[in-house]
């Protein structure tokens, strides 16, 4: 009887032991796969940076040299001189700033209306708004272009910065999801004290929603920074170009100077990477809240 218990205990210990080992092996395998994937995801970035530092003669080699020898920092200076980088950066930041302000302001108000107020027609309008998230830009782009053209707005920033002041369906959706999580009692108490909805919005909801508003600002910023087709269609004067369009014209002119091209691509990408590193949490929260990437 006693030996039987002991052997059963032994067996249990053995089983536990093997389970621990199985788990260790599983974790190792997971790490190996994760690392292998990371290498393949990072390789193009590494290539970009390494090529951007090469001399012209060392670009076209039989096997790829990951560490450039010699390192040529002037590529960056040359790339920045051969297209008006600072001017395009200023233009891009100008457009981004207005798009961010417009999107945040004009999306927060409708989001409040959809999330915190009860009124006739709300649910139908909300469904229509959700459907517009799916609508490809190409469907509406052309008459909008004709409209802006008739207004004489082509060649100016107005077609890029005015529409955000009418809200973005995605941003409204994201903010509405967030506003729904704020306890209704807060609003009720304020209403009993005679607070208007306008004041509840500004003094209670907005201060509580700073993270969500920041997420919306971030998505709007990245959207405006990377936008290509709108600046391409509306900006006619080269001096008004944004970085995305400027980079494209740069490609056209330096089509085989890969070191300069990679330097330019790095410079256009770097600011976004920096922003991303400092705001990762906001990103993830925004995605979690909506299930949609911006």
């Amino acid at each position, binding site marked *: 009887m006693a030996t039987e218990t002991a052997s059963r205990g032994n067996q249990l210990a053995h089983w536990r032991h093997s389970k621990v080992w199985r788990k260790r092996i599983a974790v190792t395998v997971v790490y190996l796969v994760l690392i292998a994937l990371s290498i393949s995801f990072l390789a193009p970035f590494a290539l970009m940076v390494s*090529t951007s530092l090469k001399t012209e003669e060392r670009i076209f080699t039989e096997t790829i040299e990951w560490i450039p020898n010699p390192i040529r920092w002037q590529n960056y200076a040359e790339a920045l001189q051969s297209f008006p980088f600072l001017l395009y950066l200023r233009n891009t930041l100008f457009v981004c700033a207005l798009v961010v302000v417009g999107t945040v302001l004009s999306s927060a108000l409708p989001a409040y209306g959809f999330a915190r107020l009860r009124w006739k027609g709300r649910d139908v309008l909300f469904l229509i708004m959700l459907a517009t998230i799916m609508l490809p830009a190409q469907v509406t782009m052309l008459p909008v272009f004709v*409209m802006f053209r008739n207004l004489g707005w082509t060649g100016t920033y107005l077609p890029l910065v005015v529409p955000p002041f009418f809200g973005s369906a995605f941003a409204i959706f994201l903010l509405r999801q967030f506003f729904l999580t704020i306890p209704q009692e807060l609003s009720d108490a304020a209403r009993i004290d005679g607070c208007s909805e306008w004041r509840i919005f500004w003094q209670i909801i907005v201060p509580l929603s700073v993270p969500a508003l920041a997420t919306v600002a971030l998505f709007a910023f990245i959207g405006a920074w990377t936008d290509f087709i709108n600046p391409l269609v509306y900006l006619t004067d080269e001096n008004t170009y944004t970085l995305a369009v400027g980079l494209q014209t740069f490609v056209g002119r330096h089509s085989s100077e890969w070191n300069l091209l990679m330097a330019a691509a790095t410079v256009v990408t770097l600011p976004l990477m920096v922003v991303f590193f400092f705001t990762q949490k906001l990103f993830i929260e925004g995605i979690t809240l909506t*299930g949609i990437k911006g």
Partner: protein
Amino acid sequence: MRERQRNVQGWLFVSPWLIGFFLFTLYPILASLYYSFCDYRVLSPPKWVGLANYVALLTDRDYFLPSLWNTFFMLIELPLALIIGLTMALLLNHKIPGIGVFRTIYYLPSIMPVVAVAVLWLWVLNPQYGLLNAILTPLLAPFGLQPPGWLADPKWSKPAFIMMDLWAVGGSVVIYLASLQNVPAHLYEAAEIDGAGAWHKTVHVTLPMISPVIFYNLIMGVIWTFQYFTQTFIMTQGGPQNSTLFYALYLFYNAFRDFRMGHACAMAWILFILTLIATLVVFRTSARWVYYEGERG
């Protein structure tokens, strides 16, 4: 009185969006329907031509039909992105040290500006000196094979684009990961008690629970494929031999290169209808396999 006041307030709060909806969505959809029945070259007023634009497009074997076919081909990307994205999300869902670093690495490509991605991949895909063929050449050499010319070869140009897009799969990985973390733990515990292993838990618990997210991503993927533009505009301009002339690119060429607004608007409307159909088809077929929590029966 209070009821009316409440209604007015609601409409006031959503009015910025509502005005924008009329100006930038509803009016353009209707206007493009009208233009699609017109010969319209922007500089002169539109002239009614009935169905001529649609007939011309649907019988155009040189550009329109190939652009449609090319775009359909790119849909192959969706199941691939789904499988890779989900696998990566499942890997990232392990609670082990350093997992955040991997998540960041996978996400990086998807926040890179598309223009920069295009420039970088022109170099990666370079047939002679590119990174990809530098890896492939020694692997293929023992079999006496040569790596493809990618963007220079009409047969390989579309797969090249698909590969480039899969590099940026990280955006959907984060979405899948978020939904994985919302799967209630008690479901896994129950499955474990029933003796389910990792595979069974994935197939019978995880996938059904996150199917709404998969479903939504598939719909968006179809619509996204029809908007595929910047990459081809920069990298191939539709070539070689129109093998990467995708729908949105041809639409753009019609509108802004050839100034055939009527044609372009007809394409926009065909796209609008295709979008509706794609959405409906996925909706219909999904009823069988999409599981929504809280929906009984």
